[in-house]
């Protein structure tokens, strides 16, 4: 029989921040809280980045050409979290591009900073770029 649970908050019984979810193969469990992305953001690229959709973000700071800082609403507990970033390779006149999480010195509990850059071309090896239309980033780890 189909069932439906209406709640605003789910809390573990033994440990408030730990809930097991049975895996797809029915033979093991995965931790719900650990598996959730604690932040994700889809941003319009270009010279003035803007958040188009997101969770747990308060704002984006345009640090400079090809460099962003996403500020979190709820901070992480430490700077040891996992972050990924990517960008759409469009409007390309300089060759293939990639994106990388960068400047980990500014990977703070309340924000994450990354760069968007060209990949390797004859004229541009890793130069910062704003000439793309969409990028994204995500964080997994422990909330404070």
């Amino acid at each position, binding site marked *: 029989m*189909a*069932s*439906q*649970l*209406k*709640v*605003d908050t*789910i809390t573990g*019984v*033994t440990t408030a921040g730990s809930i097991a*979810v*049975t*895996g*797809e*193969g029915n*033979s*093991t*469990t*995965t*931790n*719900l809280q*650990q*598996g*959730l*992305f604690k932040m994700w953001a889809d941003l319009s690229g270009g010279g003035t980045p803007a958040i188009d959709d997101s969770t747990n973000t308060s704002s984006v700071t345009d640090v400079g050409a090809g460099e962003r800082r996403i500020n979190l609403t709820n901070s992480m507990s*430490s700077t*040891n*979290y*996992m*972050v*990924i*970033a*990517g960008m759409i390779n469009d409007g390309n006149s300089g060759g293939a591009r*990639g*994106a*990388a*999480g*960068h*400047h*980990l*010195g500014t*990977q703070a509990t309340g924000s994450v900073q*990354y*760069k968007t*850059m060209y*990949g*390797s071309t004859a004229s541009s*090896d*890793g130069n910062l770029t704003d000439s793309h239309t969409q990028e994204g980033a*995500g964080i*997994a*780890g*422990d909330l404070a």
Partner: protein
Amino acid sequence: MASELRVNTLKDASGNNSIGLSYVAEGTAKAWMSLNGTGTIALRDSFNISGVVDNGTGSYTPSYSSNFGNANYSASGAGGSSNSNANVRLNTPAAGSQDLETRASNDGSNYDEAYTRFTATGDLA
């Protein structure tokens, strides 16, 4: 006392924001790590990673505590801080591990990355 709740759908108390449990189970990351891949490698933080083998310069193999059901899961990686041209190459996956390499995009050479990040999503065994 441990408890188990069996439901198909979650909603908030107002009856909005419905999500099926299949999305919860399928949509959560099943493994992730932030690895210091320099010197004697060390996990900064991780989930469902039992250990990481250092295969040489810029080459690592994280293994899962709970394996995936097959090798058809999705994975992504990112580098940064140790090289301005940081990239992560994911090699052929296995249900229990994923070989990856941190390499510079400007010349394709491997290097040891201080902040090697990796995440995997898919079906657990």
